[in-house]
């Protein structure tokens, strides 16, 4: 009943500008429910469904946003695993974070819809600040992504990506962001 009421306020707030604050309040309340037992920063917003399976440590920084959509965002943190999400990160719907060892996401990162991040024991994932991971990209275990890098849509990243680079393709290849054409096959 409570969840249905939240869904209703969320939907109305989306379409009625006067109720935006109510929508934000609901999203903040939902973050406390969805991320119960986690170390959650200030003003974290969970608009849609967030499926959390937590057996380890989860830290979510200030002002992170989880967006609503047709598919829920899923977070699985295995026993002894640690997920650290930096402040002001933005997750579109359908993102999947699977943590067995350690996944650290920097500040102001953007994750598109259906992005998947997974690590493995002994192969942690580190994502720097201001990284944009576009729709459908997959970040595999043991990968380190530098600050400001862009992972293009549909890429599968299995090797490290230096700061400020663009990774695209399957397996992902590196190129300069300055060389990426506006009409190119990036995401």
């Amino acid at each position, binding site marked *: 009943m409570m969840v249905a009421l939240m869904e209703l306020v969320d939907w109305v707030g989306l379409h009625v500008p006067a109720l935006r604050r109510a929508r934000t309040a609901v999203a903040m309340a939902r973050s406390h429910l969805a991320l119960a037992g986690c170390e959650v920063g200030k003003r974290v917003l969970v608009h849609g469904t967030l499926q959390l399976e937590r057996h380890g440590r989860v830290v979510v920084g200030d002002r992170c946003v989880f967006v609503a959509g047709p598919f829920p965002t899923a977070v699985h943190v295995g026993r002894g695993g640690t997920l650290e999400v930096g402040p002001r990160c933005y997750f579109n719907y359908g993102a999947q974070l699977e943590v067995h060892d350690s996944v650290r996401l920097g500040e102001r990162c953007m994750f598109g819809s259906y992005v998947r991040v997974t690590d493995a024991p002994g192969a942690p994932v580190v994502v720097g600040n201001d990284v944009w991971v576009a729709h459908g990209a997959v970040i595999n275990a043991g990968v380190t992504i530098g600050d400001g890098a862009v992972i293009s849509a549909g890429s599968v990243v299995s090797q490290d990506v230096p700061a400020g680079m663009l990774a*695209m393709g399957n397996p992902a290849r590196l190129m300069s962001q300055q060389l990426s054409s506006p009409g190119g096959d990036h995401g």
Partner: protein
Amino acid sequence: MRALSRLKLWRCAKVGARVEVRGHVYVIGGGLIEVGDDVLLDGHLVPVELHAEPGAVLVIGHGCVLEGGVSLEAQERVELGPGCRLRAFSKVMDNHFHPVVGARHVRPPSKPVKLEAGVELGERAIVLPGAWLETNVRIGPGVVIGRHVKAGVSLVGSPPHAELHDASLRDASVPEVRP
């Protein structure tokens, strides 16, 4: 059943005859969405997303089939010709939403996307802004494409490379594909 399908598409400006919606369809934005005759939206496992921002136009041609998880996002114009088939989790969008270089939160200009008759997108394929896929183009699973592809060409791999599936088109020039 068809009445229920039309009810699920109540936010679309135009819905053709014999349209069938299985499961859920997620219609958002205040733009113009037109669904042609005999369209099948198969969202019984994962919802189908139809997103048209205010002022944008999203056209789904007659006889198109959209499988679960398909996402169509129009910020300006996205057009699917008749008989297109979009397999599971494929995506068509006419805007990158963020620029690669510069301020990430400034939305870049949109580029209309057109899929002509009989185009087929494989699972998890992604069609990017400015793409123009001519008739009977086949895009393989996981391919990301953002350019003009001539009729009858198959693209596979990522980055995509061309394969001709129609013997009568063997002499046709293949599209330029950046490595």
